[in-house]
């Protein structure tokens, strides 16, 4: 049965529920995402979950759709997979909904779907159900994607409320790359650089930490709001003080350059493949080694400690000894970055 997409662009009819939509789904989505559950094409996917299960959702509206280091598809998979991973849960199944603007190029859609397949392969994650809508021109900016994810919790007890005084704070790599990459990709600023987003599926390195029985107290990937947002949320949620050493925070030259040029702080910029852990001081070095050696986190670093001073606040110490509060960023820094 010929179910090939004949058009070069997506039309309203492709969302109509009829032959054309079938062609779109089979030729573009199922050809890449196929697995027994998805292929059964029932009204709902039947899953066999046992024990504590993590469940999360995220919508992706990033502009531009293609950027250095990824695209909206890679982001849609990594974003949701990472949210599960941050709870110590194996990212098993995803749902995936596409809202496509009439006129969107089929070739671009194929590239995005291929990105998604590649990213899922890194964690063995599968898309088991989905939905497709096509909206008239002007009603969506090219393409919006929503992914929801479920998975069994392998390492229990990870929580923002679980941070203890004396804990060490580790960051997995140099910060601010995604926000910087999106800023670069926006034509209006006409910049050129080698910088790429850090967008990545974090399950492989988290799996290593879980397998090594690392006692993770809290863990979070630093998305919008950057490192500053995570640390502030933690300080408040666990009612602790967090102190970081400015010189210990890894930042790449390119991100630093961009921040210098535009007056941003790297710790305010978004990330999509960088995470932060709070864990007991004694095992911090060990965790670091696992991350660096097996998790490809070569730039992972211990950046601070949890204290009992200035509860609910984050303090940053400069290389020459002065201290100031590291506050939540505010205002319209960069709209539509994820």
């Amino acid at each position: 049965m010929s179910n090939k997409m004949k058009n070069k662009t997506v039309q309203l009819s492709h969302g109509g529920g009829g032959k054309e939509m079938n062609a779109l789904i089979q030729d573009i989505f199922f050809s890449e995402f196929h697995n027994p559950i998805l292929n059964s094409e029932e009204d709902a996917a039947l899953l066999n979950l046992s024990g504590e299960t993590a469940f999360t959702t995220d919508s992706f509206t990033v502009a531009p759709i293609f950027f250095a280091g990824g695209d909206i598809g890679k982001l849609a998979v990594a974003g949701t997979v990472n949210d599960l991973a941050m709870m110590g849960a194996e990212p098993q199944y995803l749902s995936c909904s596409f809202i496509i603007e009439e006129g969107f190029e089929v070739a671009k859609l194929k590239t995005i779907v291929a990105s998604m397949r590649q990213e899922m392969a890194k964690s063995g994650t599968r898309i088991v159900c989905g939905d497709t809508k096509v909206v008239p021109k002007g009603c969506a900016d090219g393409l919006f994607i929503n992914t929801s994810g479920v998975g069994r919790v392998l390492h229990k007890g990870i929580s923002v409320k679980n941070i203890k005084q004396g804990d060490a704070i580790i960051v997995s790599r140099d910060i601010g790359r995604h926000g910087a990459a999106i800023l670069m990709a926006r034509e209006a600023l006409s910049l050129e650089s080698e910088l790429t987003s850090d967008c990545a599926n974090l399950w492989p390195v988290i799996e290593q930490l879980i397998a090594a029985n690392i006692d993770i107290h809290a863990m979070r990937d630093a998305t919008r709001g950057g490192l500053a947002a995570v640390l502030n949320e933690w300080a408040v949620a666990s009612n602790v003080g967090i102190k970081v050493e400015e010189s210990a925070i890894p930042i790449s030259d390119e991100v630093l350059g961009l921040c210098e040029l535009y007056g941003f702080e790297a710790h305010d910029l978004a990330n999509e493949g960088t995470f932060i852990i709070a864990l007991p001081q004694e095992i911090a070095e060990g965790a670091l080694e696992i991350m660096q050696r097996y998790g490809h986190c070569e730039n992972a670093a211990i950046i601070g400690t949890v204290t009992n001073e200035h509860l609910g606040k984050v303090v940053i110490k400069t290389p020459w000894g002065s201290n100031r509060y590291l506050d939540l960023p505010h205002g319209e820094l960069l709209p539509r970055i994820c």
Partner: protein
Amino acid sequence: MCLSIPSQVVELHEEEQSVTVETMGVKRKVSAHLMPEPLEIGDYVLIHIGFVMNKIDKADALQSIELYNEIVEKMAAAE
């Protein structure tokens, strides 16, 4: 807001009266309309809202840095 990092001229675009500068790996095109003399590749310049404002005197900068190093060493020796 004023930003202080100097940039380096890496390409010239004489017809457009502009140059490409690089700052820590980030390249962009900026206007040279305010520079009375032509710029050269390798010049260090200060940029403000997309324009070259002036050239940084590299020798002066290096001299200052050397002076600071001396101050630090002298104090360190005295301790």
